C-alpha cells in the first residue's frame, strides 16, 4: 500500500466521518487544524483511495489536494531575529512552505549576521540537524555569502537548500563543495511577497525543497525504515495517555525518518523504549530514543531494516 501525502480542506460539519474514513482505509492523520468553520487535515492516505475520499467529502464541501511536504519537518534558518530579516523574508518563506504541508521551524541564529563575524554554536547546529532539511536564508551580496557560508554549514549533515539574493547559477559557483539545493533571487527584502513574480520565487523554493526531499526519500527507499513514522505516531497516541495532555499544535511531529515527541525526556524516555508495538517488539528495538536539543522533548530516530532485520 502506497501512502500519499494530501491536505483535506472542508467544513467542520461531519468532518469526523472523514477522519474515520482515512483511518479505516489505513491512512494516518498527521495534523488537524480547526479554523473557525473550516477544518484542515494533513494526512497520509492510500493512493488508490484518494478518489473515494474525494467522493465522500464532496457533499461536505471537502477538497483533497496533494501536499508533497506532509510528514516532513523543515528548519528555516535565518541569520538573526532582527527587523532586517523579519517578518520578510524569513516568515514569508517559512509560512509559504507550511502551506504545502510541511512543519517548519524557524531557527534564528544568535550571531549569524555579518560577513567575518558570523558564527553558529553547537546548540544551533544540533537543532538544525534534528530536521529533515534546512533552508538557509542568506543576504544579497555574493562576497558575503561566499565568505560566511562555510562557517554556517560546518557540522550540518541534513540536506541544505541555500537561498540568497544573487541568481541561482551565481550561487552555484560560489559554494564549494556544493549543497543540495539553490534558489537565487530570494535574499534580503523588506516588503511582503504578494506580487505574482515574488510568489513564483516562493514556489521555486517549495519546488527545490520538494526535489531535495524526494531525492532523500529515494535514498531511504533502498534501505526502508523498520516502521513508518506515521504508524509509530499512532501507536504512541494509543499507548501513552499523557501525550493527550500536551497542548502543542502537534504533540507528536512526524519527520521522514523519525518523530519528535513533546514529552519530557527524563520521565518518558524509558517508558517509550519499553512500549510494545507488536508481539514482543518494543519501540526501543526499532528506534533510538534521544533527548532533543529543542526544550526537553524526545527525538525518536527509526532504524532502517538493515539494522533491525524486521519491518513492522
Amino acid at each position, binding site marked *: 500500500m502506497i501512502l500519499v501525502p494530501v491536505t483535506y480542506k472542508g467544513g467542520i460539519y461531519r468532518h469526523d466521518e472523514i477522519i474515520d474514513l482515512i483511518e479505516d482505509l489505513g491512512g494516518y492523520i498527521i495534523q488537524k487544524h480547526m479554523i473557525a468553520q473550516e477544518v484542515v487535515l494533513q494526512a497520509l492516505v492510500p493512493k488508490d483511495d484518494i478518489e473515494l475520499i474525494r467522493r465522500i467529502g464532496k457533499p461536505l464541501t471537502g477538497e483533497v489536494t496533494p501536499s508533497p511536504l506532509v510528514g516532513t519537518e523543515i528548519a528555516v534558518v535565518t*541569520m*538573526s531575529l*532582527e*527587523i*532586517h*530579516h523579519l517578518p520578510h523574508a524569513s516568515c514569508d518563506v517559512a509560512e509559504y512552505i507550511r502551506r504545502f504541508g510541511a512543519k517548519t521551524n524557524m531557527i534564528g541564529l544568535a550571531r549569524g*549576521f*555579518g*560577513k*567575518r*563575524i*558570523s558564527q553558529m554554536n553547537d546548540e544551533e547546529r544540533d537543532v538544525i540537524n534534528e530536521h529533515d532539511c534546512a533552508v538557509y536564508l542568506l*543576504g*544579497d*551580496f*555574493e*562576497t*558575503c555569502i561566499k565568505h560566511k557560508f562555510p562557517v554556517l554549514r560546518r557540522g550540518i549533515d541534513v540536506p541544505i537548500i541555500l537561498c540568497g*539574493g*544573487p*541568481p541561482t547559477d*551565481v550561487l552555484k559557483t560560489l559554494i564549494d563543495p556544493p549543497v543540495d539545493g539553490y534558489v537565487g533571487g530570494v*535574499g*534580503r*527584502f*523588506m*516588503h511582503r511577497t504578494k506580487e505574482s513574480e515574488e510568489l513564483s520565487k516562493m514556489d521555486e523554493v517549495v519546488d527545490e525543497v520538494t526535489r531535495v526531499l524526494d531525492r532523500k526519500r529515494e535514498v531511504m527507499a533502498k534501505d526502508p525504515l523498520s516502521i513508518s513514522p506515521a504508524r509509530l505516531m499512532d501507536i504512541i497516541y494509543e499507548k501513552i495517555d499523557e501525550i493527550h495532555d500536551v497542548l502543542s499544535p502537534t504533540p507528536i511531529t512526524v519527520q521522514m525518518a523519525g518523530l519528535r515527541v513533546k514529552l519530557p525526556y527524563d520521565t518518558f524516555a524509558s517508558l517509550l523504549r519499553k512500549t510494545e508495538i507488536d508481539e514482543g517488539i518494543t519501540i526501543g528495538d526499532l528506534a533510538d530514543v534521544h533527548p532533543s536539543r529543542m526544550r526537553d522533548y524526545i527525538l525518536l530516530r527509526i532504524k532502517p531494516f538493515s539494522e533491525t532485520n524486521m519491518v513492522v
Partner: protein
Amino acid sequence: MEAVEYFEVECPEKAGGDYYRHIADVVLLDHNLIRVIWKLHIFIDPRIPLFIAAGRTRKVPGIVKLRDFSDVNAREGKVTISIGDESYLAPLLQILWEKFGKERVEQPDRFTIVMNLSESELQGLEDLPVYDPSESLYKDLIYALQVIQPEGFKVRRQYYGKGRFYLVASEDTLPEDIEEIVREKFSLMGESL
C-alpha cells in the same frame, strides 16, 4: 522615490546594489521619511566591508512653542492653559512638572491645565519651547538608516547637523580617513559636508 531629488546606490555588485535600492525605498516609505529627505547617496562595499549613507534633509519646521498650540490666560496669579493640539500635551506636561513640580500642575480635564504661579514665573511662559521636530527627525532618520544597512555592521558613526546627515557602518574598525570618504560622497551629490 520621486520626492527625493537625488537618490543613488553605489555598489560594486550590481544585483546587490539593486536590492538595496529597493530596500532603502521601502524602509524610508514605511518610516514616513520620503518627504523629509532631499538627497540621499548610499555606498555599500561588502568587500571592505563598509556602508555609507549620506544626504540632505529638506527644511524642517521650527521649534514648537507653548503659544503655537494653546491659549494662556493669567488672572490674579492663576494661569489657565487651554490646549488646542493634544499631540504636544505629553511633552508639555513633562516640562511643566519638571519646572514647577507635579503638585502645582493641575489638569481638570484633557484640554486644560491650571497652575498658581508668581509674577516672575509667569514671564516668558508663552514662549516656552515644548517640542523640537528636528530632534525626533534625527532619531527617526538614523533608525531608518540602521534598518537599511546590512545587519552585521555593528561599528557605527553618525552625524546630523545643518540639514546634512550621514551614517557609516562596518564590521571592522572604521578606516581612519572615513571623513574624507564621506566628503567624497557629499561632493557626488553636489554638496559639501
